[in-house]
């Protein structure tokens, strides 16, 4: 399944949200939610995006499916056989691109329209894209319901979201995302609202469908333990920057960036006899409003030196075996 062909290639992607500057004055400050990030997702090699709230991971996800427009940068994806920069697509081209890319949201209580039946919800992308007639759509929806474990499909087709449990709703959301056979799916905390016993089922389902339908995920989560089970590679974000990226197990066992190290040691372990190290980090996360031209992690870094303050944020460098880190001191 794993190939070297890139499915998504992101270059210098930026999203700034200007802060309101009052009624007549132009805004001077901006939140640098995503600040010049680069990464590649090869076909079949799901990437996990982790970081604290406010690190820019959800904004990155929304940019990749073009729910919001980037301030600058490029996003290359394959659309109908050709490599296209989808960062600034409009109109018909944007609609065409949306056949390849879908998103699954965190909260299945909010992402489903309460007035639409399961069938309406799942069939909507087919309708929008003008695929098939009603009979074909119904057959396809039934197939998908079966695939996401909501069977027999007839008993679910005409139910409303309030008649479903949280786990079942998220399965409907997954079916909706997959019905037009996208190659790339951005999943934003898809299991964080679900209970443990339900969560594992949804995680296993997403794995199974990825293999079966050839889907590659960008999996956004705050939970490193969940990421470990869902992705092949991991990118760690901090204040709009990717600070470390590499093979999931490699990053977990041999983290290089001081922030990644702190993040990993802060994860509680489900074993009362395990002694966890104290996370080595100072203070708490700030908002990336007009950040100073220095390492974004400078304020909280336990190993900071002069160079980290004197130079702009370091670039991501390959430290071998595609393990990238952005730090002057590593």
């Amino acid at each position: 399944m794993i190939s070297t062909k890139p499915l998504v290639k992101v270059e210098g992607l930026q999203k700034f949200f200007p802060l309101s500057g009052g009624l007549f004055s132009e805004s001077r400050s901006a939140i640098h939610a995503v600040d010049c990030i680069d990464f590649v997702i090869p076909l079949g090699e799901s990437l996990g995006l982790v970081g604290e709230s406010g690190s820019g991971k959800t904004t990155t996800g929304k940019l990749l499916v073009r729910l919001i427009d980037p301030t600058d940068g490029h996003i290359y994806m394959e659309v109908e056989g050709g490599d296209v920069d989808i960062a600034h697509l409009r109109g018909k081209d944007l609609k065409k691109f949306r056949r390849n890319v879908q998103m699954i949201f965190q909260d299945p209580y909010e992402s489903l329209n309460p007035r639409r039946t399961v069938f309406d919800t799942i069939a909507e992308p087919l309708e929008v894209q003008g695929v098939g007639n009603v009979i074909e759509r119904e057959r396809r929806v039934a197939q998908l319901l079966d695939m996401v474990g909501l069977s027999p499909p007839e008993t679910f087709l005409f139910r409303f979201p309030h008649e479903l449990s949280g786990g079942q709703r998220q399965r409907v959301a997954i079916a909706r995302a997959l019905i037009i056979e996208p190659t790339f799916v951005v999943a934003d905390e898809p299991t964080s609202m679900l209970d443990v016993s339900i969560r594992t089922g949804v995680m296993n389902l997403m794995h199974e469908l990825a293999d079966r339908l050839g889907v590659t995920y960008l999996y956004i989560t705050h939970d490193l333990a969940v990421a470990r089970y869902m992705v092949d590679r991991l990118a760690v974000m901090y204040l709009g920057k990717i600070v470390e990226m590499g093979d999931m197990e490699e990053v977990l066992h041999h983290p290089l960036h001081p922030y990644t190290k702190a993040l990993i040691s802060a994860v509680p372990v489900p074993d009362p006899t395990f002694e966890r190290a104290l996370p080595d980090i100072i203070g708490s996360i700030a908002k990336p409003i007009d950040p100073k031209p220095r390492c974004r992690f400078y304020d909280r870094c336990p190993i900071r030196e002069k160079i980290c303050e004197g130079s702009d944020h370091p670039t991501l460098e390959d430290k071998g075996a595609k393990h990238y880190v952005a730090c002057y001191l590593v």
Partner: protein
Amino acid sequence: MEDKILQAEDLTMHYTTRAGEVSAVDNITFSVGKGESLGLVGESGCGKTSVAITILRLLPENAEIMGGRVLLDSTDLIKLSAEQMRKVRWRRISMIFQAAMNALNPVYKVGDQIIEALETHLAYMSIQESRERVEELFSLVGLDPQLMDQYPHEYSGGMRQRAVIAMALSCHPDLIIADEPTTALDVIVQDNLLREMMALQDRLGMSMIYISHDIAVIAEVSERIGVMYAGRLAELADSAEIFHHPIHPYTFGLMSAFPSIVGPKRELAMLPGEPPDLIDPPPGCRFHPRCPYSTEICIEQVPEFKDHGGGHLAACWHPLEASG
């Protein structure tokens, strides 16, 4: 008997809803020792928060305590009048709620809200004494005392939760019930706060009941752990014991489904089905429809919550091999 601060015995509580009676807490028995931390873990709707609000008698109108006792020292809290109960809350038992944003009033300064709690419960304090006490509390939970004259929206999530902890500590309670105290927080903030709470507990000699859906958090903060399922306690034991030798198949299933970043990557097991509707719970053992070991007796009779050796309690007809 003497080393127990709180004992819940056969506690049963129902909610009345339009759809019917919800059996939210069913025959729960447990105790908390002096200075001990007990964890209650379970999935949403298993009744863990209901247990907490039953103990504190902070029940909504449609809830009714059907039976059982809650002994604080030797006083049965269920029998106290509303006025007597008010004196128990904060001074003897206080609570840290899940959403810190909702626990603080947005239009009052944080310090003033704690002062209000102090004045209500410890009426003899002067304003000056109260302010000093708040300063002391702020330092205790790692907040800059100067922040007491700021409003909740000026605080970050972690700071708000610290303020709520300061408030819970204000009247020197013997027991604090913390319901999902770190659930909405980022891991680094969570780690920080949990370490602080454990240190405070040690220092002040309080007892704690931690309530969470997060097994990993419960594992780290609790000396003993109770696993709840569908309104009942499935299992209760020392935390190392419950993690390394679970007896109840539900506990085992929960542990096997929980991912960890430590140790080799293993397959996550899946529990079939979903927790039951408590308006019409399954007869016998409430876990039987999802249990791989279920037999006739599990459907017919409720298993007794009993000791399987060394204080390891469980309610199961087919216990997994217990340790010696």
